[in-house]
């Protein structure tokens, strides 16, 4: 920069005269760059109120990208938390949100979500099963409504977008109830954007579906139908992830197929741009006796973190007692007592690997460094612990998404939530989770991570 420029900096802009009589401009006229600095220090909740102060603050906050750490969506108190509650899991239960940064929970009247809005056909019939959440991604929930027809819902802005019906599924499911279809049709759903932060953004929804989660389908917002992707149907899919307009699909064999959805621009089918098939099987290092493989199973997640693709394996014991010991099913019945012990499934360990493209393998990762991962029914996410001090670094925040086991017992299900520290290799409950009486019992519907956005 030339000296003259710098000198000018000190003289230029009469609006920046400080402390001159009559030149006082109030806070509503504060310079945008300063307001933005302030905005960055505020929580999502405070920003929402900041918007209602005056028009200049409102305009600024509406155009700035406010990034928040995840919130936890929880069932309403008095619903679903009781043992053996007859109340069907309902979207009405999804009406509390817990903000990690503010350590506060917010209540919503979620029935309103359906009662207002343009395309509303909600009939408020107590007999019809209520909505069921199958995904959470970029502030949107993917919901199967009371007719098992899918829609996107932003619980904060209350925007709703109808998605095409899953026709194939409806056809084969004549003998199933709506509830069954809601829960079994889509095993995971995400929202994917052509480019981050661009106005001219294409938006797709991608789902894993099928009887054994063997299929992938997508639709662009506004499409009338879903389109299947040419995935390897001999595999079942564990997780899907969107990144820079690409879809990454992790299979149960730890392969990753990648499609570029932006290549649909000319009406063509999305191009499969990569197929990562690791040469050797993943070594989970669980062969130390404690983990005999009839006592546990692994659930896998794909996470993008600092430009790396991580494969996170969550090891869940089928029956785990309060000391964290893995039991056999036979251990649950003792000679003296004919009632089986209540030892629900529980996460007992995590393993992290990263994709090694050149070596064509998954490399073991011991530490996540500064990062905190958020896993569950949501699209997997990674946050920086220094940018978001409310998140413990080198930790995994997880919610229960063991859909198959969740409905197996009325005493538990949705309970397997917590924070795992990779460094200490220990678990702790989700922060302030016990405050809401959710404790160890059934949490129905299970909690979801959601990053609030308007």
């Amino acid at each position: 920069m030339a000296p003259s420029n710098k000198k000018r900096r000190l003289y230029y802009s009469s609006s920046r005269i400080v402390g001159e009589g009559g030149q006082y401009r109030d806070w509503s006229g504060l310079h945008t760059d300063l307001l933005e600095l302030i905005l960055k220090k505020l929580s999502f909740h405070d920003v929402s109120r900041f918007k209602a102060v005056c028009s200049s603050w409102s305009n600024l906050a509406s155009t700035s990208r406010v990034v928040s750490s995840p919130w936890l969506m929880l069932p309403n108190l008095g619903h679903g938390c009781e043992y053996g509650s007859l109340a069907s899991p309902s979207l009405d239960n999804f009406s509390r949100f817990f903000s990690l940064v503010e350590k506060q929970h917010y209540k919503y009247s979620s029935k309103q979500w359906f009662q207002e809005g343009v395309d509303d056909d909600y009939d408020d019939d107590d007999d019809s099963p209520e909505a069921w959440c199958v995904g959470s991604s970029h502030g949107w929930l993917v919901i199967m409504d009371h007719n098992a027809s899918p829609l996107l819902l932003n619980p904060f802005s209350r925007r709703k977008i109808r998605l095409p019906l899953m026709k194939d599924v409806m056809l084969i499911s004549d003998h199933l109830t709506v509830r069954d279809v809601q829960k079994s049709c889509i095993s995971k759903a995400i929202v994917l954007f052509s480019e981050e932060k661009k106005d001219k953004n294409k938006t797709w929804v991608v789902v894993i579906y099928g009887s054994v989660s063997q299929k992938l389908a997508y639709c662009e917002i506004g499409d009338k139908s879903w389109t299947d992707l040419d995935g390897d149907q001999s595999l079942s899919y564990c997780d899907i992830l969107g990144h820079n307009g690409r879809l990454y699909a992790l299979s149960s064999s730890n392969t990753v197929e990648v499609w570029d959805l932006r290549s649909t621009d000319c009406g063509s089918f999305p191009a499969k741009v990569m197929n990562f098939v690791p040469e050797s099987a993943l070594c989970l290092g669980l062969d130390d006796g404690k983990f005999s493989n009839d006592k546990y199973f692994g659930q896998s997640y794909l996470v993008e973190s600092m430009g790396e693709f991580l494969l996170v394996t969550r090891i869940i014991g089928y029956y785990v007692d309060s000391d964290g010991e893995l039991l056999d099913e036979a251990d649950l019945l003792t000679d003296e007592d004919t009632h089986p012990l209540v030892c629900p499934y529980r996460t007992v360990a995590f393993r992290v690997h990263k994709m090694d493209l050149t070596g064509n393998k998954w490399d073991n990762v011991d530490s996540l460094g500064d990062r905190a991962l958020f896993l569950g029914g949501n699209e997997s996410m990674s946050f920086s612990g220094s940018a978001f001090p409310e998140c413990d670094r080198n930790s995994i925040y997880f919610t229960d998404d063991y859909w198959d086991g969740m409905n197996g017992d009325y005493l538990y299900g949705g309970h397997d939530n917590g924070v795992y520290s990779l460094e200490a290799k220990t678990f702790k409950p989700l922060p302030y989770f016990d405050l809401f009486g959710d404790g160890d019992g059934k949490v129905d519907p299970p909690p979801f991570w959601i990053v609030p956005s308007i």
Partner: protein
Amino acid sequence: MSSSSTTTTTTRLLMLKASDGVTFEVEEAVATKLGAINNMVEEEGSEDLICLPNVNGKFLGMVLEWCKKHANNNTNSDKGNDEVNKWWDKEFVMDLDQNTLYHLLMAADYLSGTELVDLLTEKVASMIRGKKVEEIRETFKIKSDFLPGQEEEIRKKNSWAFE
């Protein structure tokens, strides 16, 4: 750093002149905590008098007071410096009323005192956190300038935040 300072250990003094004519004599090491002053010193090393027509004496004085504390604390090799600075920063912003805060923030921004701007914007944020819209307006003496219906629209869209 100016080229003439290599032979002597005594710190060079700068004269800073505010819009109302008030002048401050400050050590270079203190004044150069402000990005704008630092740039001028680097480019026009021979000038000892710097005129700052956009900031008046009261707020320039406060900004320099902050710089001085931080410059002094940083020259001590004591490990507790961060703690001292934090404590002193807390004291510095504690009793600022919104009017002073506003002008101080403008002055710090104008003089490119990045650290001080950060401290002051944090103070502003702390005055917004957890407050209702009406309380924020009251705190900062802001009048709502929304068109009729506009504010209701915003509140409706974010209704959960107002419950």
